[in-house]
């Protein structure tokens, strides 16, 4: 006899067909009730997405591969039910909104699944209206989903599966690439959906965004379930060794032995007085740079940029010196990437002046600027075309005719790429790909290194090692421009921040000073980090 479980998995092992890596899921036992709010977390590559795919039959029906063990959905083995039968019970929201929204309007997007199960027209109409209201996207129904913001797209994707009235919906990293405002909208919608009686399974490795909402946490590590329990139970354990970063409140609470364990800053503040808090670990001392003019490698003076009739940048000014790490922070669509493209001439300012190494950038071609400004864009997949990592790293330097083998060896050591040099770049994990792209950006020994959202979608292991690397580069005199909306990373590794909102720089200074400017933060649609909320601006 089984209880009222929706998903029952017994000693499951699974391997994708191509990967020589052996079992990706290696002995999973898991039972999930239909109305749970469950978080699946784990470091990158631990198998979160893979596990989610077994819930709705995509594994094994769509992905193939080899599978051992037993998966039962509503008491029927999933091997005996096709994805087309399961999707009514278990809706799945994928990580990439671009690929999962494929209809011309939001209305049709929601209708698609309802058409698949053969509902009558009236019923489809009714369900569309109902779901749009629950999720709060009535106004978007006639819009084209591909033209919406990231957060709106996630909401549409959720609505598209929710309309089928599934017992549970599965979301694979729904918050990746979303700024805090959008995260809040999606979170609120999910909470409401759960209150209405629908179960939610969410995969995510940034715990701070979810632990306050969920009832149960499952921690995956190398394809196995290592922890399973309520948030308080799980966060009491040492989860850092599994590559997860506990929310600040929980880790302090754990050190102080608080019970119940506070899950967010408000909870911590209400259970302990501020004076009793331990002193935060001081951010490691960074060399404070007082730039002499000769050290200044980049200067933007009142740069404006218009495209498609819209002003995208307005009077942006900044300077960057050798050995400095400057963070440019801003929400989705603030214009960060647009600004970045000005540094190497991919965009040319409509007005204003850019000076690179005391020469006007205006006079230099993109290929010349590439010598001085190394850029790693957000998506490393946009640049891999060589068969080995080594060739990939040197491709740019060779094209620029400044190939220096000993420097590349040095880079490989610095980025811990030695074991990967002979592998195909597009076969690496996303984190490894990023490291290759960073090394490639430095291959021509540029004075300035610019990184666009380097930590997006990355786990704690990656963030820590990237942080150390940035420090090392900085100590060698590298000027670094860090473009990010990951404020807790920027807070730790950049001493100076620029806050960008709607193409304008609205605050500048130490992280504490910028986050302390509440009006500016609100205008920029950003939220201060946990650390700032706890300790205020004092510690910067």
């Amino acid at each position: 006899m089984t209880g009222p479980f929706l998903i029952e998995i017994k000693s499951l092992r699974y391997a994708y067909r191509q990967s020589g890596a052996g079992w990706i899921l290696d002995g999973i036992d898991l039972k999930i009730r239909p109305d749970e709010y469950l978080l699946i977390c784990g470091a990158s590559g631990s198998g979160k997405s893979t596990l989610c795919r077994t819930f709705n039959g995509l594994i094994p029906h769509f992905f193939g591969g080899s599978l051992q063990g037993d998966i039962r959905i509503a008491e029927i083995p999933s091997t005996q039910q096709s994805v087309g039968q399961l999707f009514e019970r278990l809706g799945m929201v994928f990580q990439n909104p671009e690929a999962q929204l494929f209809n011309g309007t939001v209305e049709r997007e929601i209708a698609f699944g309802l058409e698949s199960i053969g509902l009558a027209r009236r019923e489809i109409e009714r369900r569309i209206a109902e779901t749009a209201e629950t999720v709060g996207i009535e106004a978007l129904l006639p819009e084209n989903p591909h033209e919406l913001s990231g957060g709106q797209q996630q909401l549409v994707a959720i609505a598209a599966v929710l309309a089928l009235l599934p017992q549970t919906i599965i979301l694979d990293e729904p918050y990746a690439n979303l700024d805090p405002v959008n995260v809040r909208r999606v979170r609120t919608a999910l909470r409401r959906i759960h209150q209405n009686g629908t179960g939610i399974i969410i995969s995510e490795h940034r715990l701070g965004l979810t632990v306050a909402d969920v009832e149960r946490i499952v921690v995956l590590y190398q394809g196995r379930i290592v922890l399973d329990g309520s948030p308080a139970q799980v966060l009491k354990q040492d989860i850092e060794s599994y590559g997860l970063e506990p929310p600040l409140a929980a880790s302090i609470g754990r050190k102080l032995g608080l019970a119940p364990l506070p899950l967010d800053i408000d909870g911590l503040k209400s259970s302990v007085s501020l004076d009793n808090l331990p002193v935060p670990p001081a951010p490691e001392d960074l060399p404070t740079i007082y730039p002499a003019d000769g050290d200044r490698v980049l200067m933007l003076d009142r740069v404006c940029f218009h495209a498609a009739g819209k002003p995208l940048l307005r009077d942006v000014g900044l300077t960057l010196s050798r050995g400095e790490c400057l963070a440019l922070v801003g929400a989705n669509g603030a214009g960060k990437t647009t600004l970045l493209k000005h540094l190497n001439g991919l965009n040319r300012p409509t007005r204003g002046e850019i000076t690179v190494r005391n020469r006007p950038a205006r006079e230099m071609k993109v290929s010349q600027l590439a010598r001085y400004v190394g850029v790693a864009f957000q998506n490393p997949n946009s640049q891999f075309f060589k068969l080995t990592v080594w060739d990939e790293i040197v491709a740019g330097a060779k094209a620029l005719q400044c190939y220096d083998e000993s420097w590349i060896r040095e880079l490989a050591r610095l980025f811990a790429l030695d074991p990967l040099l002979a592998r195909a770049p597009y076969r690496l994990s996303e984190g490894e790909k990023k490291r290759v792209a960073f090394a490639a950006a430095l291959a021509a020994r540029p004075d300035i290194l610019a990184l666009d959202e380097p930590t997006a979608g990355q786990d704690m292991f990656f963030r820590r090692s990237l942080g150390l690397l940035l420090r090392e580069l900085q100590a060698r005199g590298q000027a670094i421009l860090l473009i990010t909306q990951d404020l807790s990373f920027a807070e730790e590794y950049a001493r100076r921040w620029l806050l960008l909102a709607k193409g304008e720089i609205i605050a500048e200074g130490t992280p504490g000073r910028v986050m302390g400017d509440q009006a500016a933060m609100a205008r920029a649609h950003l939220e201060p980090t946990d650390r700032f909320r706890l300790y205020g601006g004092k510690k910067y």
Partner: protein
Amino acid sequence: MKNLLDPRTKIIIAMFFTILVVASRTLSWLLPQWGVLIVLVVAIGKGRAYARWLRLSLPMALFFGAVTWWTADWKTGLMAALALLNLVSVFFVFFSTTTPEDLGNSLVKAGLPYPVAFVFSTSLQFVPVIGRKAKNVLDAQRARGIPLEPGWSALRHYPAFLGPLLIQAFQLAEELAAAMEARGFGRPGRTFYRDYRMGPTDWLAVAITFLLLTACLILQRM
């Protein structure tokens, strides 16, 4: 306006117009046809879009006319250019009043396999997606000194462009396929949210245009 007629009715009317264009041999017939098309375009409020679109299509028609002129004579050339312009204008009017989805779905009712209709109605959505990816690849490669400006020099560096783009495009296809599967694409018994039915207005429109077509054809032969 958009939903006044069933997409199939519009196809039939467009076909009638095409026959008329193809059967017309003189400028005195082709020019008024173009006039009618322009009036239609303005009536549906697409005048601006049409003007923009003409800028792209006109050179093509002229080129085509020039080739014909070169192999035959200038009169044939001019007519060929105008005929082509009329034909593609029919296309334009048709597609600015019919969404690909409506067209695809109504054709399914007429016997087109659903996956084909799906490709037809969905592809347009992904053109900008691929366009963005292409732009990102160009930017990423140029940013590290690999020249990819259009032209012969780019040809040597083609793998640097096509490689990343295709790999990403095929990953996109995989993700799209998984998403379609998870929303019941392959499941039999699909219904359609929008109802496609040929009503009295449709038949009336078909009948009237048919009569007009016959009249024009007879007039022409006289």
